[in-house]
Protein backbone atom coordinates (compact mmCIF):
# COMPACT_ATOMS: atom_id res chain seq x y z
CA UNK A 1 0.00 0.00 0.00
CA UNK A 2 2.76 2.43 0.87
CA UNK A 3 4.58 1.47 -2.32
CA UNK A 4 1.39 2.18 -4.29
CA UNK A 5 1.09 5.66 -2.81
CA UNK A 6 4.78 6.32 -3.41
CA UNK A 7 4.45 5.29 -7.06
CA UNK A 8 1.57 7.72 -7.37
CA UNK A 9 3.69 10.49 -5.81
CA UNK A 10 6.49 9.80 -8.28
CA UNK A 11 4.06 9.97 -11.18
CA UNK A 12 2.60 13.27 -9.97
CA UNK A 13 6.12 14.64 -9.61
CA UNK A 14 6.90 13.51 -13.13
CA UNK A 15 3.70 15.15 -14.43
CA UNK A 16 4.62 18.34 -12.54
CA UNK A 17 1.44 18.35 -10.51
CA UNK A 18 1.73 21.19 -7.95
CA UNK A 19 3.26 19.80 -4.79
CA UNK A 20 0.50 20.87 -2.33
CA UNK A 21 -2.10 19.18 -4.55
CA UNK A 22 -0.02 16.02 -4.89
CA UNK A 23 0.52 15.92 -1.12
CA UNK A 24 -3.21 16.28 -0.53
CA UNK A 25 -4.09 13.47 -2.93
CA UNK A 26 -1.39 11.21 -1.51
CA UNK A 27 -2.54 11.88 2.07
CA UNK A 28 -6.18 11.08 1.25
CA UNK A 29 -5.23 7.96 -0.67
CA UNK A 30 -2.98 6.68 2.11
CA UNK A 31 -5.63 7.35 4.77
CA UNK A 32 -8.33 5.57 2.75
CA UNK A 33 -6.19 2.54 1.97
CA UNK A 34 -5.08 2.30 5.62
CA UNK A 35 -8.67 2.39 6.84
CA UNK A 36 -9.67 -0.22 4.27
CA UNK A 37 -6.77 -2.47 5.26
CA UNK A 38 -7.75 -2.15 8.94
CA UNK A 39 -11.24 -3.40 8.00
CA UNK A 40 -9.80 -6.30 6.00
CA UNK A 41 -10.65 -4.73 2.65
CA UNK A 42 -8.05 -5.09 -0.08
CA UNK A 43 -6.71 -2.24 -2.17
CA UNK A 44 -8.33 -3.84 -5.21
CA UNK A 45 -11.75 -3.56 -3.59
CA UNK A 46 -11.14 0.16 -3.06
CA UNK A 47 -9.37 0.99 -6.30
CA UNK A 48 -10.63 -1.65 -8.68
CA UNK A 49 -8.27 -2.60 -11.50
CA UNK A 50 -6.31 0.59 -10.83
CA UNK A 51 -4.73 -1.16 -7.85
CA UNK A 52 -2.35 -2.86 -10.31
CA UNK A 53 -1.35 0.24 -12.25
CA UNK A 54 -0.47 3.14 -9.93
CA UNK A 55 1.02 5.30 -12.69
CA UNK A 56 -2.11 5.22 -14.86
CA UNK A 57 -4.30 5.71 -11.83
CA UNK A 58 -2.28 8.74 -10.68
CA UNK A 59 -2.21 10.25 -14.17
CA UNK A 60 -5.94 9.79 -14.67
CA UNK A 61 -6.81 11.21 -11.26
CA UNK A 62 -4.63 14.29 -11.85
CA UNK A 63 -6.07 14.78 -15.34
CA UNK A 64 -9.68 14.50 -14.15
CA UNK A 65 -9.02 16.92 -11.32
CA UNK A 66 -7.56 19.36 -13.85
CA UNK A 67 -4.28 19.81 -12.01
CA UNK A 68 -1.92 18.93 -14.85
CA UNK A 69 0.06 21.90 -16.11
CA UNK A 70 -1.00 23.22 -19.52
CA UNK A 71 0.78 21.53 -22.45
CA UNK A 72 1.94 24.84 -23.84
CA UNK A 73 1.55 28.52 -23.13
CA UNK A 74 -1.39 30.32 -24.77
CA UNK A 75 1.01 32.16 -27.09
CA UNK A 76 2.53 28.88 -28.25
CA UNK A 77 -0.93 27.50 -28.95
CA UNK A 78 -1.80 30.60 -30.97
CA UNK A 79 1.42 30.24 -32.93
CA UNK A 80 0.69 26.58 -33.53
CA UNK A 81 -2.77 27.45 -34.79
CA UNK A 82 -1.27 30.06 -37.11
CA UNK A 83 1.25 27.60 -38.47
CA UNK A 84 -1.46 24.99 -38.90
CA UNK A 85 -3.62 27.46 -40.76
CA UNK A 86 -0.70 28.61 -42.88
CA UNK A 87 0.12 25.04 -43.68
CA UNK A 88 -3.37 24.41 -44.96
CA UNK A 89 -3.34 23.87 -48.64
CA UNK A 90 -5.59 26.81 -49.52
CA UNK A 91 -3.23 29.31 -48.02
CA UNK A 92 -0.30 27.61 -49.72
CA UNK A 93 -2.04 27.87 -53.05
CA UNK A 94 -2.74 31.55 -52.52
CA UNK A 95 0.89 32.13 -51.63
CA UNK A 96 1.96 30.23 -54.76
CA UNK A 97 -0.41 32.33 -56.86
CA UNK A 98 0.93 35.61 -55.50
CA UNK A 99 4.55 34.45 -55.67
CA UNK A 100 4.19 33.27 -59.26
CA UNK A 101 2.63 36.56 -60.21
CA UNK A 102 5.50 38.51 -58.68
CA UNK A 103 8.09 36.32 -60.41
CA UNK A 104 6.30 36.77 -63.74
CA UNK A 105 6.17 40.54 -63.22
CA UNK A 106 9.87 40.65 -62.40
CA UNK A 107 10.71 38.59 -65.47
CA UNK A 108 8.56 40.80 -67.67
CA UNK A 109 10.21 43.90 -66.30
CA UNK A 110 13.69 42.49 -66.94
CA UNK A 111 12.77 41.54 -70.51
CA UNK A 112 11.21 44.96 -71.14
CA UNK A 113 14.23 46.88 -69.82
CA UNK A 114 16.67 44.76 -71.79
CA UNK A 115 14.88 45.45 -75.04
CA UNK A 116 14.30 49.09 -74.21
CA UNK A 117 10.56 48.65 -74.41
CA UNK A 118 10.06 49.76 -70.87
CA UNK A 119 9.29 53.32 -70.44
CA UNK A 120 9.07 55.06 -67.18
CA UNK A 121 7.75 58.45 -66.66
CA UNK A 122 10.49 60.35 -64.90
CA UNK A 123 9.39 63.58 -63.50
CA UNK A 124 11.54 66.37 -64.90
CA UNK A 125 12.77 67.95 -61.73
CA UNK A 126 16.13 69.18 -60.75
CA UNK A 127 19.00 70.71 -62.67
CA UNK A 128 18.52 68.51 -65.80
CA UNK A 129 14.86 69.33 -66.20
CA UNK A 130 15.42 70.85 -69.62
CA UNK A 131 17.19 67.73 -71.00
CA UNK A 132 15.34 65.67 -73.61
CA UNK A 133 13.32 62.54 -72.65
CA UNK A 134 16.01 60.17 -73.99
CA UNK A 135 18.41 61.48 -71.37
CA UNK A 136 15.99 60.75 -68.60
CA UNK A 137 15.17 57.26 -69.82
CA UNK A 138 18.85 56.42 -70.05
CA UNK A 139 19.34 57.81 -66.56
CA UNK A 140 16.48 55.72 -65.20
CA UNK A 141 17.52 52.38 -66.70
CA UNK A 142 21.28 52.92 -66.82
CA UNK A 143 21.40 52.26 -70.60
CA UNK A 144 21.28 48.96 -72.50
CA UNK A 145 24.85 48.05 -71.58
CA UNK A 146 24.10 47.86 -67.88
CA UNK A 147 20.64 46.19 -68.17
CA UNK A 148 20.36 42.62 -66.86
CA UNK A 149 20.52 39.68 -69.23
CA UNK A 150 17.22 39.10 -71.04
CA UNK A 151 17.58 35.35 -70.68
CA UNK A 152 17.15 35.68 -66.95
CA UNK A 153 14.09 37.78 -67.57
CA UNK A 154 12.62 35.28 -69.99
CA UNK A 155 13.31 32.44 -67.57
CA UNK A 156 11.65 34.25 -64.70
CA UNK A 157 8.72 35.21 -66.88
CA UNK A 158 8.22 31.62 -68.02
CA UNK A 159 8.58 30.36 -64.46
CA UNK A 160 6.10 32.87 -63.14
CA UNK A 161 3.55 32.17 -65.87
CA UNK A 162 3.92 28.45 -65.35
CA UNK A 163 3.43 28.80 -61.61
CA UNK A 164 0.38 30.98 -62.20
CA UNK A 165 -1.14 28.37 -64.51
CA UNK A 166 -0.59 25.50 -62.09
CA UNK A 167 -1.88 27.51 -59.11
CA UNK A 168 -5.00 28.53 -61.03
CA UNK A 169 -5.59 24.92 -62.01
CA UNK A 170 -5.32 23.73 -58.41
CA UNK A 171 -7.44 26.60 -57.11
CA UNK A 172 -10.29 25.90 -59.52
CA UNK A 173 -12.07 23.13 -57.54
CA UNK A 174 -11.92 25.18 -54.37
CA UNK A 175 -13.17 28.35 -56.06
CA UNK A 176 -15.90 26.40 -57.84
CA UNK A 177 -17.06 24.93 -54.52
CA UNK A 178 -16.95 28.33 -52.83
CA UNK A 179 -19.00 29.93 -55.61
CA UNK A 180 -21.46 27.04 -55.55
CA UNK A 181 -22.00 27.35 -51.81
CA UNK A 182 -22.53 31.09 -52.12
CA UNK A 183 -25.03 30.48 -54.90
CA UNK A 184 -26.88 27.95 -52.75
CA UNK A 185 -26.99 30.46 -49.90
CA UNK A 186 -28.55 33.09 -52.15
CA UNK A 187 -31.09 30.70 -53.75
CA UNK A 188 -34.75 30.93 -52.65
CA UNK A 189 -35.14 29.08 -49.37
CA UNK A 190 -31.47 29.39 -48.60
CA UNK A 191 -29.98 31.63 -45.99
CA UNK A 192 -29.03 35.08 -47.09
CA UNK A 193 -25.38 35.99 -46.86
CA UNK A 194 -26.33 39.29 -45.25
Amino acid at each position, binding site marked *: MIEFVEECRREWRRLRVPEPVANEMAADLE*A*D*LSEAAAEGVSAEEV*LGSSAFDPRSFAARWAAE*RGVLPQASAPLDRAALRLVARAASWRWLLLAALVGSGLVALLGAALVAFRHGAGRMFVPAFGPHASEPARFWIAQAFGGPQSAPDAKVGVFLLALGLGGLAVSMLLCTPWMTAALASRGAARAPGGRSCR
Partner: protein
Amino acid sequence: MRRMAASERRRSELLRGVLDLCLLAVMEDGPAYGYEMTKRLRARGLSIVGEGSIYPLLGRLERDGLVKTYRAASEGGPPRKYYRASSAGRRVLAAGLSEWRAARDAIDSVLAPVEAEVVP
Protein backbone atom coordinates in the same frame (compact mmCIF):
# COMPACT_ATOMS: atom_id res chain seq x y z
CA MET B 1 -13.72 -17.41 -19.39
CA ARG B 2 -14.46 -15.33 -22.45
CA ARG B 3 -18.14 -15.12 -21.42
CA MET B 4 -17.12 -13.83 -17.98
CA ALA B 5 -14.89 -11.18 -19.53
CA ALA B 6 -17.71 -10.08 -21.87
CA SER B 7 -20.14 -9.93 -18.96
CA GLU B 8 -17.72 -7.88 -16.89
CA ARG B 9 -17.16 -5.57 -19.80
CA ARG B 10 -20.89 -4.99 -20.20
CA ARG B 11 -21.30 -4.34 -16.48
CA SER B 12 -18.38 -1.94 -16.56
CA GLU B 13 -19.86 -0.04 -19.51
CA LEU B 14 -23.27 0.14 -17.82
CA LEU B 15 -21.74 1.47 -14.61
CA ARG B 16 -19.58 4.00 -16.40
CA GLY B 17 -22.68 5.89 -17.47
CA VAL B 18 -24.21 6.19 -14.02
CA LEU B 19 -21.44 6.01 -11.44
CA ASP B 20 -21.33 9.80 -11.14
CA LEU B 21 -25.05 9.76 -10.26
CA CYS B 22 -24.43 7.00 -7.73
CA LEU B 23 -21.72 9.06 -6.03
CA LEU B 24 -23.92 12.16 -5.95
CA ALA B 25 -26.74 10.03 -4.55
CA VAL B 26 -24.70 8.64 -1.64
CA MET B 27 -23.55 12.19 -0.84
CA GLU B 28 -27.19 13.01 -0.13
CA ASP B 29 -26.80 11.04 3.09
CA GLY B 30 -24.22 13.58 4.19
CA PRO B 31 -20.66 14.66 3.32
CA ALA B 32 -18.25 11.76 2.87
CA TYR B 33 -14.63 11.08 1.98
CA GLY B 34 -13.54 8.70 -0.77
CA TYR B 35 -13.43 5.36 1.04
CA GLU B 36 -16.57 6.19 2.98
CA MET B 37 -18.42 6.60 -0.33
CA THR B 38 -17.15 3.19 -1.43
CA LYS B 39 -18.61 1.71 1.78
CA ARG B 40 -21.94 3.48 1.27
CA LEU B 41 -22.16 2.14 -2.29
CA ARG B 42 -21.40 -1.37 -1.08
CA ALA B 43 -24.02 -1.05 1.67
CA ARG B 44 -26.59 -0.18 -1.00
CA GLY B 45 -25.63 -3.25 -3.01
CA LEU B 46 -23.25 -1.76 -5.54
CA SER B 47 -19.79 -3.24 -5.52
CA ILE B 48 -17.31 -1.51 -7.77
CA VAL B 49 -14.70 -4.24 -7.54
CA GLY B 50 -13.12 -4.58 -10.96
CA GLU B 51 -14.28 -1.15 -12.05
CA GLY B 52 -12.10 1.90 -12.14
CA SER B 53 -11.50 3.72 -8.93
CA ILE B 54 -13.92 6.44 -7.86
CA TYR B 55 -11.12 8.94 -7.20
CA PRO B 56 -10.72 10.21 -10.78
CA LEU B 57 -14.50 10.50 -10.99
CA LEU B 58 -14.58 12.51 -7.76
CA GLY B 59 -11.84 14.69 -9.25
CA ARG B 60 -13.99 15.32 -12.31
CA LEU B 61 -17.06 16.12 -10.23
CA GLU B 62 -14.96 18.62 -8.29
CA ARG B 63 -13.50 20.15 -11.45
CA ASP B 64 -16.98 20.51 -12.96
CA GLY B 65 -18.31 22.20 -9.82
CA LEU B 66 -20.81 19.46 -9.03
CA VAL B 67 -19.35 18.85 -5.58
CA LYS B 68 -17.91 21.05 -2.86
CA THR B 69 -15.03 19.87 -0.74
CA TYR B 70 -13.47 20.71 2.58
CA ARG B 71 -10.88 19.14 4.86
CA ALA B 72 -11.83 17.96 8.31
CA ALA B 73 -10.60 15.44 10.84
CA SER B 74 -12.25 12.05 10.36
CA GLU B 75 -13.41 9.94 13.28
CA GLY B 76 -10.21 8.99 15.04
CA GLY B 77 -8.18 9.45 11.91
CA PRO B 78 -6.11 11.98 9.97
CA PRO B 79 -7.76 14.96 8.25
CA ARG B 80 -9.60 13.87 5.13
CA LYS B 81 -11.15 15.57 2.16
CA TYR B 82 -14.93 15.50 2.44
CA TYR B 83 -17.23 15.80 -0.55
CA ARG B 84 -20.81 17.01 -0.70
CA ALA B 85 -23.04 17.76 -3.66
CA SER B 86 -23.25 21.40 -4.71
CA SER B 87 -26.53 22.90 -5.93
CA ALA B 88 -25.38 22.24 -9.51
CA GLY B 89 -24.61 18.67 -8.51
CA ARG B 90 -28.09 18.24 -7.07
CA ARG B 91 -29.62 19.52 -10.31
CA VAL B 92 -27.49 17.09 -12.32
CA LEU B 93 -28.53 14.27 -10.00
CA ALA B 94 -32.23 15.09 -10.42
CA ALA B 95 -31.94 15.28 -14.21
CA GLY B 96 -29.81 12.16 -14.32
CA LEU B 97 -32.32 10.25 -12.20
CA SER B 98 -35.17 10.96 -14.58
CA GLU B 99 -32.98 10.05 -17.58
CA TRP B 100 -31.93 6.82 -15.90
CA ARG B 101 -35.52 5.85 -15.04
CA ALA B 102 -36.72 6.58 -18.55
CA ALA B 103 -33.89 4.53 -20.08
CA ARG B 104 -34.37 1.72 -17.58
CA ASP B 105 -38.12 1.51 -18.31
CA ALA B 106 -37.56 1.57 -22.05
CA ILE B 107 -34.98 -1.20 -21.90
CA ASP B 108 -37.19 -3.22 -19.57
CA SER B 109 -40.03 -3.05 -22.12
CA VAL B 110 -37.70 -4.27 -24.85
CA LEU B 111 -36.26 -7.10 -22.78
CA ALA B 112 -39.40 -8.13 -20.88
CA PRO B 113 -40.86 -10.48 -23.56
CA VAL B 114 -37.56 -12.33 -23.86
CA GLU B 115 -37.39 -15.53 -21.93
CA ALA B 116 -33.80 -16.56 -21.68
CA GLU B 117 -32.05 -18.84 -19.29
CA VAL B 118 -28.53 -18.12 -18.13
CA VAL B 119 -26.48 -21.18 -18.95
CA PRO B 120 -23.50 -21.44 -16.63
